[in-house]
């Protein structure tokens, strides 16, 4: 069987895979990183979004072998070792930007990529457009958008701490 070597959340792994093995299958079934979800498996819903060499991609629509040599970040790689959440995770918590939570890992990964690619800041409209590849079937979008708007201020250093959600 072919082998793939990739770095996931800072740790390098060499894994035997089939040609058809998807990146999300490698992450979930071989590395047991089950925070990355499979929703639709048709590249629509975005529950499987991870970062590959700094870009958000749908890991259900990428062969594991196509990621050979890549740097991968999954939802498990965001918090610090002491458990301190990434500002985006903290914002999702503070703003209650989830109901069932199934879409959340993909939402958070897409949101971080979106914010990082727009250092000048994003309007509400731009955040909504930027989330086009992520579906939330609880329709919790309003709070997701609010969370991302708040998190970007912390990520870009415009605020030291997250603005608290309204009571």
């Amino acid at each position, binding site marked *: 069987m072919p082998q793939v070597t990739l770095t996931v959340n800072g740790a390098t792994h060499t894994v035997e895979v089939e040609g058809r093995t998807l990146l999300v299958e490698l992450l979930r079934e071989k590395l047991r990183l089950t925070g990355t979800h499979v929703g639709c498996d048709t590249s629509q819903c975005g529950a499987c979004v991870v970062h590959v060499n700094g870009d958000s991609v749908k890991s259900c629509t990428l062969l594991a072998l196509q990621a050979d040599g890549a740097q991968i970040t999954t939802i498990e790689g965001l918090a610090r070792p002491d458990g301190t959440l990434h500002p985006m995770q903290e914002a999702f918590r503070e703003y209650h930007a989830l109901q069932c939570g199934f879409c959340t890992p993909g939402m958070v990964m897409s949101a971080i990529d979106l914010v990082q690619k727009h250092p000048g800041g994003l309007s509400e409209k731009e955040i909504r457009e930027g989330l086009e*590849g992520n579906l939330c079937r609880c329709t919790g979008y309003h709070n997701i958008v609010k969370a991302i708007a708040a998190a970007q201020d912390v990520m870009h250093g415009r605020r030291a701490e997250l603005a608290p959600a309204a009571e």
Partner: protein
Amino acid sequence: MYDFAYHKPSSVADAVKLLAADPDARPISGGQTLLPALKHRLNKPSSIVDLSGIAELKGIRREGDRLVIGALVKHHEVANSPEVKAAIPALAQMAGTIGDTQVRNRGTIGGSVANNDPAADYPAAVLGLGATVVTDKRRIAADDFFQGMFTTALEPGELLVAVEFPIPEKAGYAKMRNPASRYVMAGVFVARTKDGVRVAVNGAGPGVFRQAEMEQALAANWAPEAVAGVRQSPDGLNADIHGSAEYRAHLVTVMAKRAVASAG
């Protein structure tokens, strides 16, 4: 998905050799169309030839009055490229509306053009700008390249290497997306070059096509009003649960007006 052998050549010559040796081999670039098709078991390649390691298929460069985009260039690269924005802003704008962010981070111009999905965006730009498709064997004019739904002039084993766009005086693109799938219901790419006006329509029919009456109208008067009275015939256009042929025909005129307005 059925299993397959996986190859990752580092040159066009090696890729062509692999494809020639196995008629059931398929090339993959971004895989945003091929992988979903394989999951549905719509085809069963014996091997997959990953083109992503081939340096000669990468890069965007200006060559005189042409913009050359390598087959492996991703949609997000075209959308954000200073060269593309300066030479053909409508092309950068169009690339920034394909699929979603994650699809644009993987999908490539070569894959989109070679696949020729009737609802894809790139075929409209390639045909509308009168681009030239460059393969490992030859150069093919856009007018000869697109041959209807998912069909192109590419022969088995022939590899799309780059697309050469002439730089237009003006160009614009407008599309109506299906609100759920986001695929194009009808899109129109308009361009005015030193060789004349071209109008290409995607999404509405079984393949991308040129709209001759609109081209004549815009050649006489480059203005949205010039195409407002040109009616697209619904004959042969797509009709499905998302819209009738008459609806799509109506959209073609509306999108043409918007495309010209966006081109300035």
